């Protein structure tokens, strides 16, 4: 920080009067957009959201409809057939081929975007809300409450995450919602720790002391003064966590514990066809690429958001 001390010459107009006050949110957004990785990530993401929203228009077929017996020449696990690229005209065109049930893989990948985006955002949203609540309570009320809550978080962190998630899904029962819940629960401690750390530093600051002196209640101070100021690291961690959540839920689906057929979910598409990888690699490559692109988008955006919001990391 370089502060210039000195008098503003009288001839100059008051700079504050001429300048519009810039809003915090606009500044933040501007900072994020200055990060190259954030822009690349955001571009990918806009594309993915568009694919998800316009899935019915983009998809060439119903994602759950088998083509066998419906289309002449359609075969189970048929490789991609694009007429422009020299695929014989007597074969039906399928950009990414057909799967083991004779369904159009392209349409399933397109519809899968809806499922995966929703998985990432809901799972992390759930984990952030609960984690922030636990972290805020632990950090603000300190003492015994803090100790009990954080030791509980330590216990959850003592398990390799996927293992605990598998155990939780086994208890709750298989299915996409339960898989998301499991991954969400496993992710809570991370957000609780981040929130607690911010709260611990913020509650010692003068503006909080001022609120206390003005007689604001403890709950009021926590909700109105502390939490809004502790959100930044949480947002950073959350953006980075979305990709991990998508991968983890896809892993559960891959193992058959998450999304159930016939839902077009990328992880379960790969899981169902994993033994066919040597004969029909397109069934793994295309949904796999879809996961990679989605996670890459969120990771790049997360990196950009972190660099923009956390000046210590700027380089």
């Amino acid at each position: 920080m370089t502060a210039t001390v000195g008098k503003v010459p009288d001839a100059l107009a008051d700079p504050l009067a001429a300048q519009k006050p810039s809003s915090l949110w606009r500044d933040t957004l501007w900072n994020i957009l200055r990060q190259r990785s954030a822009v690349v990530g955001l571009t990918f993401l806009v594309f993915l959201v568009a694919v998800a929203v316009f899935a019915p228009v983009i998809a060439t077929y119903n994602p759950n409809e088998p083509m066998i017996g419906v289309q002449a020449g359609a075969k189970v696990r048929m490789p991609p057939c694009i007429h422009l690229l020299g695929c014989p005209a007597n074969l039906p065109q399928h950009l990414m081929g057909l799967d083991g049930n004779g369904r159009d893989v392209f349409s399933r990948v397109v519809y899968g975007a809806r499922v995966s985006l929703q998985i990432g955002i809901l799972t992390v949203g759930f984990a952030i809300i609960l984690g922030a609540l636990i972290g805020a309570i632990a950090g603000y009320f300190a003492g015994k409450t803090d100790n009990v809550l954080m030791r509980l978080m330590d216990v959850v962190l003592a398990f390799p995450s996927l293992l605990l998630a598998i155990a939780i899904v086994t208890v709750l029962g298989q299915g996409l919602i339960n898989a998301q819940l499991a991954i969400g629960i496993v992710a809570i401690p991370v957000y609780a720790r981040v929130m607690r750390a911010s709260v611990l530093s913020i509650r010692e600051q003068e503006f909080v002391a001022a609120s206390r002196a003005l007689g604001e209640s403890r709950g009021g101070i926590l909700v109105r003064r502390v939490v809004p100021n502790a959100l930044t690291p949480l947002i950073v961690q959350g953006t980075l966590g979305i990709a991990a959540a998508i991968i983890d839920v896809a892993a559960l689906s891959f193992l058959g514990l998450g999304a159930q057929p016939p839902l077009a979910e990328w992880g379960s598409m790969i899981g169902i066809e994993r033994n066919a990888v040597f004969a029909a690699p397109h069934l793994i490559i295309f949904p796999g690429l879809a996961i990679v692109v989605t996670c890459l988008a969120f990771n790049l955006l997360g990196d950009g958001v972190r660099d923009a919001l956390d000046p210590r990391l700027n380089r």
Partner: protein
Amino acid sequence: MSRFIIRRLLLSIPVLLGVVTLVFVLARVIPSDPCRAALGEKATDAICAAFNTRYGLDRPIVVQYVGYIGQILGGDLGTSIRFNRTVAEMLVERLPVTVELTLYALLFATVVGITLGRISAIRRNSPADVGTMIIANLGVSIPVFVLGLMLAYLFAVVLKGSPIALPPSGRLSPGVDVVPLAEAWGLQGLGGPPRLILDFVSNINTFNAVLTLNGPLLVDTLRHMVLPAIALGTIPMAIIARMTRSSLLDVLGLDYIRTARAKGVSERRVVSAHAMRNALLPVVTVIGLSLGGLLSGAVLTETIFNLTGIGKTIVEAITGRDYIVIQGVVIVVAVIYVVVNLVVDVSYAMLDPRIRLG
């Protein structure tokens, strides 16, 4: 230093107790009847009553919990309901597979990660840096199961017949002999914990091959480990590469590096001897933290590459409702994880005095 270690050890006790309790609770609330899961749906009520008495499942839950804690403290992890083998035996047989896989993955992640991070930092903003960071970004975005299947396809189908073709599944090729160490060294009479340890080491094929000077076994083991280790190690590799880069860049900007350069120390020595030593500190933590990810990833890697390690064992135990195995294996994994984190913390404190004094 010893005070720091003792404090960290004491802090692990409640965590471990919590782990054991959580596993016990999870194993009991799995919505299924362990008797019918083990004996089949046709087991009669009388048979199930006898079964429950035999395994103590008819006792009150609190009594079961206390008995269970006592058992664990006595080192008894129980007997598998489905396989009628002790969990300890299963662990001695299967944990080495996971340990071997994890060690190779960690080796890959550390060597490649640090090398890439170093190149990237030294040639900041060059095409090499950009390329490395693209690899790192892709590395954290590709799921273990996608990468594993792609590698299997590439090396077993596309490159089939070429010298670099690699086996896509299993631990050993048919016909490759493994002589247990106990047999090779004439120690069949050995019993108790020493025998368990010997068998454990013996089941890590790499160690076995080195200790018995078995060349073909070593080569075959390495060939089978390459693909799973890369699949499992890529995510930590990417994280380590990014961490090394940013940490090395931080250190290279410090005054003592400028001093070293001013003294006329060669650039190679500045980086290797002066900068890397300090830059690797945060990397040590990241390596330790990545162990949890490796153990999680091992579940998927073992499933894809058909390796009978503990990851696969847990998945099988959960689908088979073999809750004694679930309990035993998950506890052992969690304990390993807690201990490794402890070791990382302690080694970090040894490397950086500010931590133990702060």
